[in-house]
């Protein structure tokens, strides 16, 4: 919301004692944030009021005129290209040094004729988007005086952000009242004595069908309004507040809304079908053509203003086209009403129509404002046109008590703020906020006025009022020693941080992606066909189709990161993400989705680039498996890791496995299906794994115990066998361990060979075996016997033979 300093001056006595900057700062520091403060006079420097004395055609240019222009102290020569003026017209004259857009005015010769300035158009002055000819001013202005000051453009504009609990501050008077409370200056309220005007005749009737939906409807009829333009000061004040001028009546409604916070709507009284206004909810399939030209079909819970025939406005949101004010309008029916906020909010959301009026109603404004706004309209219209109007106000309302008594204990102030605030000071703060009160023994008895009825309900609300006006900066800081035992991370938080740190230290870059993906991506990776990934959660109002569902795996996000980085020419990626995935809980209605924390890792591209001392190498499956083994060794027990072939549709059918810990699945690992990778235009192999982190952490070794360092030397032997290539390494290892006995402490595959010297369909595997006993030094003979047994069994089981 924008308001101006000069406007505030009308409602705060001696505001001039404080500079606009000072006021802005004080407002901000008391909870009414001033986002921007702008001085508008700068733009109009060296532009003054002048009067055209006479003019003749330019001797050397058909379209130009030579004007004699009076600026009070002297007559200047001005060359002008417009032709919409006549003698005695008042104009805005830009003198040397004035800035019009990017252009600085200089005295100059135009086609041989001397010109001492420029007469400006509205567009050049920034008063409208388009304009024809120069601006001709109407009214009494002093020649030679500053144009901006004379027409109300020399001002300070406050751009204010009002919090949703303070609809009363969506107005000049609301802000003025705040200023009064923080500065101690006197607030000059709008007050009208008009009890004797209310409902004194029945020439017009108002019927409210549901007083909950419309607690108050006040109106006044203004007959035979003379055709007058909006005065410059009002037009420009509205302009500074971002409201463009339309016509006098509409401008007045906007002006009064900004000033009092009460939205007004003017109907052409002649165009209403009856002398009765009915406030009701819309009928089924009822429709209305609005001022903006759109036709809207209404819901049965929409509040409408209707005459006896049709709906003529959507309450609080927009008026109808048929009864709109136009250039022929003579009689105005002016509505000043109060509608139920939640209903207005619902309708404005549904129709996608938000306006200054609906914004105010949504936040529940004070019903007492309706009469004040009508009277203010009358007062200003009278000031502008000089007309007097019939003293009748029609008013219909729900009679409720809108004053509230609250007792504010001094002990509560002390408890919440931590300081004692002097009793009288606290009382005065409330007083200046318009809250009448008196001090009793140990509390203040306060009477909340109607305009704060919605937000001041409880003792704590008054504590807040005291605090913000007293000033947060005046409340001293107090050290807080927490009385909880001590700060700490939970085991799982600590482990998550350790795992993250381990991955960082291992050279992986951590990514974070949005939790949502598109259904298209989901199906592209065939997740809809995988039991463990298919139960996604859908967002009912997604931003767009790219953000339609919640991830059930981090797969597509990491592949997307790869693709995006490849497009930035970064081809080699080691990335990971730790995030939640979400699954629909099908076990019951209204259940929250199941959330699981996943660790996903993706590898693709080159492990080493070609270098002067080592050769290029591309990542392969075993790089990823190596990381997995490292994580298992670091956090669990390495021997408990097992990969079991399990086909996932997004993985290469031969390189696709479950990660098992003690025969329980805790993740997946594989190579992304080459066809998917191709379709994504990724020209390199991609390896991916994902671990259920919650599960991994639960299983990690919490009670690590020291193990004796071996005291006796070990014996190592090498064992090279030739075996059918279908037999896997783990089958061989299992067999070796089975026969190796408890003294076989380590087993390492150091060579794998297929090709020359080895029969087709066979491979050679070479293992290094390490034997050691805890209680003695092993003898060579013992090891020999064991290794013999191993070979015999490998032969029996797999037909393996010792390689010669």
């Amino acid at each position, binding site marked *: 919301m924008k308001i101006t300093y000069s406007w505030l001056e009308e409602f705060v006595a001696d505001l001039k004692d404080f500079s606009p900057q000072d006021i802005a700062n004080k407002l901000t520091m008391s909870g009414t944030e001033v986002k921007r403060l702008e001085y508008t006079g700068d733009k109009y420097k060296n532009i003054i009021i002048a009067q055209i004395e006479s003019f003749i055609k330019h001797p050397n240019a058909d379209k130009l005129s030579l004007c004699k222009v009076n600026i009070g102290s002297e007559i200047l020569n001005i060359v002008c290209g417009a032709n919409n003026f006549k003698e005695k017209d008042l104009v805005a004259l830009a003198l040397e040094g004035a800035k019009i857009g990017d252009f600085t005015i200089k005295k100059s010769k135009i086609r041989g004729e001397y010109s001492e300035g420029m007469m400006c158009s509205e567009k050049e002055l920034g008063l409208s988007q388009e304009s024809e000819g120069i601006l001709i001013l109407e009214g009494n202005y002093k020649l030679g005086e500053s144009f901006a000051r004379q027409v109300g453009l020399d001002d300070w504009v406050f751009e204010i952000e009002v919090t949703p609990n303070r609809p009363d501050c969506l107005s000049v008077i609301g802000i003025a009242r705040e200023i009064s409370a923080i500065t101690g200056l006197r607030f000059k309220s709008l007050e009208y004595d008009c009890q004797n005007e209310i409902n004194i005749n029945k020439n017009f009737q108002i019927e409210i069908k549901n007083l909950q939906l419309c607690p108050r409807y006040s109106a006044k009829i203004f007959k035979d309004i003379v055709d007058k333009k909006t005065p410059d000061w009002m037009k420009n004040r509205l302009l500074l507040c971002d409201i463009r001028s339309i016509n006098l009546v509409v401008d007045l409604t906007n002006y009064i809304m900004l000033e009092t916070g009460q939205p007004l709507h003017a109907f052409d009284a002649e165009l209403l079908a009856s002398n009765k206004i009915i406030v009701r909810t819309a009928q089924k399939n009822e429709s209305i053509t609005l001022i903006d030209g759109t036709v809207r079909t209404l819901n049965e819970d929409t509040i409408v203003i209707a005459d006896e025939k049709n709906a003529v406005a959507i309450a609080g949101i927009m008026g109808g086209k048929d009864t709109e004010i136009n250039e022929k309008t003579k009689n105005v029916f002016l509505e000043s009403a109060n509608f139920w906020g939640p209903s207005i909010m619902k309708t404005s959301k549904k129709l996608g129509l938000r306006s200054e009026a609906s914004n105010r109603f949504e936040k529940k404004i004070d019903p007492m404002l309706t009469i004040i706004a009508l009277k203010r309209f009358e007062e200003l219209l009278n000031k502008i046109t000089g007309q007097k109007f019939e003293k009748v106000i029609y008013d219909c309302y729900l009679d409720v008590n809108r004053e509230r008594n609250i007792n504010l204990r001094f002990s509560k102030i002390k408890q919440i*703020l931590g300081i004692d605030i002097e009793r009288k000071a606290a009382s005065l703060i409330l007083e200046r906020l318009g809250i009448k009160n008196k001090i009793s023994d140990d509390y203040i008895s306060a009477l909340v006025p109607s305009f704060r009825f919605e937000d001041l309900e409880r003792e704590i609300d008054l504590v807040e009022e005291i605090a913000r006006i007293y000033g*947060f900066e005046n409340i001293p*800081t*107090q050290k*807080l020693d927490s009385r909880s035992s001590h*700060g700490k*991370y939970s085991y799982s938080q600590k482990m998550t941080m350790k795992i993250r*740190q381990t991955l960082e230290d291992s050279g992986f870059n*951590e990514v974070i992606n949005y939790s949502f993906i598109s259904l298209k991506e989901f199906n592209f990776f065939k997740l809809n066909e995988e039991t463990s990934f298919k139960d996604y959660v859908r967002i009912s109002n997604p931003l767009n189709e790219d953000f339609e569902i919640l991830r059930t795996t981090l797969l597509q996000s990491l592949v997307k990161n790869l693709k995006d980085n490849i497009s930035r020419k970064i081809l080699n990626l080691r990335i990971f993400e730790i995030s939640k995935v979400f699954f629909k809980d099908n076990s019951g209605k209204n259940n929250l989705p199941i959330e699981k924390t996943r660790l996903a890792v993706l590898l693709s591209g080159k492990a080493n680039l070609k270098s002067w001392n080592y050769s290029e190498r591309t990542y392969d499956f075993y790089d990823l498996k190596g990381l997995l083994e490292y994580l298992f060794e670091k956090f669990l027990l390495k021997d408990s890791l097992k990969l079991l072939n399990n086909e996932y549709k997004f993985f290469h059918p031969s390189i696709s496995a479950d990660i098992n810990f003690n025969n329980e699945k805790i993740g997946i690992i594989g190579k992304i299906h080459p066809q998917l990778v191709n379709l994504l235009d990724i020209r390199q192999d991609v390896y991916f794994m994902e671990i259920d982190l919650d599960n991994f952490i639960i299983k990690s070794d919490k009670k690590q115990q020291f193990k004796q360092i071996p005291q006796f030397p070990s014996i190592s032997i090498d064992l090279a066998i030739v075996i059918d290539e279908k037999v896997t390494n783990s089958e061989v290892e299992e067999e070796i361990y089975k026969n190796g006995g408890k003294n076989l402490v380590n087993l390492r595959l150091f060579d794998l060979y297929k090709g020359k010297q080895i029969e087709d369909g066979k491979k050679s595997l070479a293992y290094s075996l390490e034997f050691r006993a805890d209680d003695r030094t092993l003898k060579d003979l013992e090891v020999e016997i064991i290794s013999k047994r191993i070979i015999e069994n490998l032969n029996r089981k797999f037909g393996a033979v010792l390689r010669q």
Partner: protein
Amino acid sequence: MEEKINLLKQDLNKTFENFTNDKKEVKSLNELDLLESKYLGKKSLIAQTLKNINEFPHEVKPFVGKTVNEVRNKIENEIKNLRDELNLIEFDRKLREEKFDLTLPGRLLPLGSKNIINKVIEEIQEIFIGLGYEIAEGPEVETDYYNFEALNHPPDHPARSLHDTFFIDDKILLRTHTSPVQIRYMEKNKPPVYIIAPGKVYRKDYDVTHTPMFTQIEGLAVDNNINFGNLKWTLETLAHSFFGKDRKVRFRPHYFPFTEPSAEVDVSCNICGGKGCRVCSGTGWLEILGAGMVDPNLYKYVNYNPDEVTGFAFGMGIERMAMLKYGIDDLRLFFENDIRFLRQF
């Protein structure tokens, strides 16, 4: 005979003297070999004397032998020492002759990185762990009750419109702030409560300054006698630890439905030093978080007695904290996952 022995003694002394002189000239192992053969070789006085020791009478032979050996040992010792010395010099010379290019690149270890968001979360967690807080967590998909209702946002509350919410259905939604964790934690734990809760939150807003997902940290302290001064102290401590001791902190009154009084907290702009610049929109201040005293209404939802306990809560956007601390000027960078961005942290 005595004379002969004296003569021998003299000769030996002379020989040692000569040796000492010759030794000074020795500069290489070769020269040392020559020196050795000159004084200890077959033709040397020492070798000759020992060889012909039988020329001496039986009773003086031990004496002669001892005398000659003494000198020989002395010489041998000196030669050995000199040889060690020369060997070391020679070794050193060979090392120095090796040509080694230190400027060739080393074998690369891949550089990993923690995501900047988690890095900032950890920095803030550390500060609060130090102040005696624990870390609490809650679901990212929430019920309307925890996200709004129990936080003083009844269904028709205008403050709801500040949150553009993603819904799963009419009662289940993506949490719009981390504040539901407050309620969930208080439901399960009695005071005193000192927690912070980091996590992802979601709002339906996507432009240059908004992403539909972002990260917050929530803080909550509830205990006997917690007051607004304590809140100020806590957040000043945070700001000073996180941004630096030289930064000023100010508290502006604001409105949040679940705290009262509520405040927005600013730190002084480090770019202009408080004079006003583009980054701080000319105000000299940068908003970092929202905070306030817990609204007593909340205690009703979790069965705390509002006359016995008071507390404060605060919440901040991690991306914003990161932007202000590390000078990141574009919010979208956080979720583009450009390796060149990630590797900087």
